[in-house]
């Protein structure tokens, strides 16, 4: 297929939509120095535009295309009608600053969603303001900082994270000016309690913990961890990236967490959009409620209003968070109810354990124990034969599957992180398992086919190093 971009299909004089003509007397133009001399944008007819983007869409792989076991990302199928309700004019076509009395339906939805999320996490209060998980983490850490400062506890400048943590946990801590120390895992993939104990002191503001961990394991020492952190005056922050395994079963609040950030676009079913929009609410216990980011929705009598907590860490966006995403999460919770949510987590956990059992004879399993919603293998057996984990991932593309997350978490050599989610059938899992077995066999017998994979995709492996060294990040028009 010949490669082309918008400027290649554009021709002067074309347009992709029709616009009204001016229906008022034109005004005098402003001074020339304010006006633009030239604007070069491609000009394309509607049909050419549609064909261009349709052709591009076919080069993509989405959950609707097939199995997408990208660990840590919870690529579940999302009900179609939730997309439709988010587009209702009463939700999509409302302005953040229109009279509050004229958006009571939206505020009611937000208020109830706050309550549902607090119930699901076992917390006291929720702010829907963060626009993605990483911003929810930012909110959490800013609240932790404000909490300690308000108590006059100003030497807590350190945040602990496990060695299996997401990169965002560390980047967020750094954004808030904290020092970071890494807590090692033990040989079972749990937090090394002895190390944690030795690291906990009056300088530690919080331990940020993903639970289940990014290894897909639930740390059975959670009560001890909670106690160690709190008895030293620290707080326990949850990264809710893996909530899908706890839905309707276990509450963060019961486990001792002071706050947790959620990813509505993972767990509560809103499609990822090729990388967003997301929504990353934070749920907190009462000790942090006064610090929540603005705004919250409050109810007095039958009226809903926006309020700001007394010691709020401030605003995280120009409006109130990603409302369009909230509508879908709300619809999801109301569609499933408590029992439905429990079925989600149980099915997600069954699916992951099924893959684990079926593949552990073929791939090294660093932690051979019951897993939660995801399982982490290591490609080290294959690597010893000259086949890298990346080769395995790329070969899966030839079988029509999206690859798992690879090389993360960092504590596992050649990590292969599989999260099947609850929305996959046994038939799909079996087909995937068969493909993984064939790949393991090829690693022994025909490694070249893996090293040169993928073979059947629209393009093959790209030269990323050259792309980064000599960046070509845009086309230009109108430059002579």
């Amino acid at each position, binding site marked *: 297929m010949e*490669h082309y971009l918008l400027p290649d299909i554009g021709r002067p004089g074309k347009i992709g939509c029709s616009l009204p003509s001016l229906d008022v007397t034109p005004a005098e133009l402003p001074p020339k120095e304010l006006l633009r001399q030239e604007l070069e944008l491609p000009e394309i007819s509607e049909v050419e535009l549609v064909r261009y983007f349709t052709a591009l869409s076919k080069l993509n792989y989405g959950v609707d295309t097939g199995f*997408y076991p990208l660990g840590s990302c919870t690529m579940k199928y999302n009900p179609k009608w939730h997309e439709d309700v988010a587009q209702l004019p009463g939700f999509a076509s409302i302005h953040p600053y229109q*009279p509050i009395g004229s958006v009571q339906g939206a505020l009611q939805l937000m208020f109830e969603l706050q309550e549902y999320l607090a119930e699901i996490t076992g917390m006291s209060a929720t702010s829907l303001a963060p626009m993605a998980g990483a911003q929810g983490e930012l909110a959490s850490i800013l609240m932790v900082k404000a909490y300690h400062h308000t108590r006059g506890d100003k030497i807590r400048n350190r945040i602990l994270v496990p060695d299996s943590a997401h990169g965002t946990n560390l980047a967020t801590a750094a954004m808030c000016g904290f020092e970071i120390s890494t807590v090692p895992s033990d040989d079972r993939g749990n937090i090394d309690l002895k190390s944690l104990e030795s690291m906990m002191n009056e300088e530690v503001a919080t331990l940020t913990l993903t639970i289940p961990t990014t290894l897909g394991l639930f740390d059975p020492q959670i009560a001890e961890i909670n106690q160690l952190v709190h008895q030293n005056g620290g707080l326990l922050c949850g990264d809710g990236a893996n909530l899908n395994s706890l839905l309707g079963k276990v509450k963060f609040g*019961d486990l001792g967490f002071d706050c947790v950030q959620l990813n509505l676009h993972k767990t509560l079913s809103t499609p990822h959009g090729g990388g967003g929009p997301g929504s990353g609410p934070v749920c907190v216990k009462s000790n942090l409620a006064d610090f929540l980011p603005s705004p919250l929705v409050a109810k007095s009598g039958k009226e809903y209003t926006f309020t700001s907590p007394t010691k709020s860490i401030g605003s995280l966006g120009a409006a109130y968070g990603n409302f369009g995403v909230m509508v879908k999460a709300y619809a999801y*919770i*109301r569609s499933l109810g408590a029992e439905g949510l429990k079925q989600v987590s149980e099915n997600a956990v069954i699916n992951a354990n099924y893959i684990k059992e079926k593949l552990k004879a073929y791939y090294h399993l660093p932690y051979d124990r*019951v897993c939660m919603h995801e399982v982490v293998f290591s490609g080290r057996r294959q690597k010893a034969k000259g086949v890298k984990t990346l080769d395995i991932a790329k070969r899966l593309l030839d079988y029509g599957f999206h690859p798992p997350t690879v090389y993360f978490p960092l504590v596992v050599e050649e990590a292969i992180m599989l999260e099947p989610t609850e929305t996959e059938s046994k038939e799909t899992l079996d087909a995937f398992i068969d493909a993984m077995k064939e790949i393991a066999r090829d690693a022994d017998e025909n490694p070249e086919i893996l090293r040169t994979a993928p073979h059947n995709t629209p393009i093959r492996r*790209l030269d990323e190093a050259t792309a980064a060294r000599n960046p070509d990040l845009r086309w230009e028009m109108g430059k002579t």
Partner: protein
Amino acid sequence: MSSPYLPNTDADRRAMLQEIGVSSADELFQDVPQKFRNVQFKLPPPLSELELKGELRQLSDRNANLDDYACFLGAGYYRHFIPSVVGHIIGRSEFYTAYTPYQAEVSQGTLQTIYEFQSLVCQLTGMEVSNAGMYDGSTATAEAALIACRITKRNKVAVLTTVNPRHSEVVDTYVKAHSIPLETVEPDSVDLPSDCACLIVQQPNFFGYFEDIKTYTGKAHQVGALLIVIVDPISLGMFRPPGDYGADIVVAEGQALGNPISLGGPGLGIFACRKEYLRQMPGRIVGKAVDVDGRTGYVLTIATREQHIRRERATSNICTNEALVALAATVYLAALGKSGLRQVAELCYHKAYYAAEAIGKLKGYSLVFQQPFFKEFVVRCPTAPQQINQALFQKRIIGGLDISHIIDNGMLLCITEVNTKREIDRLVEILGAM
């Protein structure tokens, strides 16, 4: 109970549990201490698609939607015409059910459209490089301020008082995290703090009029600070791009480019800058590359700035952004093209002047600022804007933003191409009758 979203049957589950070697799903939760497991969750009982759709429709009907009202409210979120083609393209599920394009071989659709987005943003703003987008205009501004601090190795941020206060608030949240002070500067103030990392200005500004921007470029660069300009992307169809007047970083709220307002979210943070700051940029960046067979493709690049690689030394913690909103902006700009975007901008401009002139002539009303403006302007009203807005609402009109806390009886009105002459005339008539 069977669910449309759980494809496995009871028999499937039994077979799988048997393979795993446990007798129940609950056994798989054995690592969760017993007392934390299977607790009560108080949530409303589940509803079917039919029932819940009905309920959600009722809930949405309790909101006054802008399609049923004449709307003159802007202040950062704008109602512009969205060609249907935008919804049809972003509604293709190959786009919206994909994840961040880590696997380039099966993500060329997303990657190439981001490359187009970056290119269009650069063309529009006159800047050299753009990223794939941030959460919204305000966080793009905040991250720009942080990067300016890193580039200049200074710890002070200055923002003009004419910048959208919501943006300044968010900048404050972000810089406070780093213990960096935020100073507000009056537009006519001669001196910038000599130790500031950047000056943040908005063009046209929050009140709708154009700043004498060259002065600020000069002032910022004189003290070695970067100039961060917040723009209205639609205005760039007609007005000078920031790249022309020396901006170092350009940020914008991109919602207006083909997206519904949706109570202000999801939005789209546009972020473009000079090439020399490329490796300090936050967020995803897509670059062109060549595959092993010599074919052109696209890939996430310069990722060594990002949290998943660089961890605590990343340029930002951002991960998920607003990819689908950026795709809508891409399709929108492609559909309008150079003449369409110019036409939309001109429609806004001429209609806004038409409305301003008529309202300015009404007894008791006056225009607060005399400078040229684009699509927004401030009117001083004879009574409290809140009262006026209530009266307008009764007549199915959503009035402007009440800014009486900044300007005595001030109302910030916004006119775009979707406001017809009839709507504007009616607004003028009702205002005059009050």
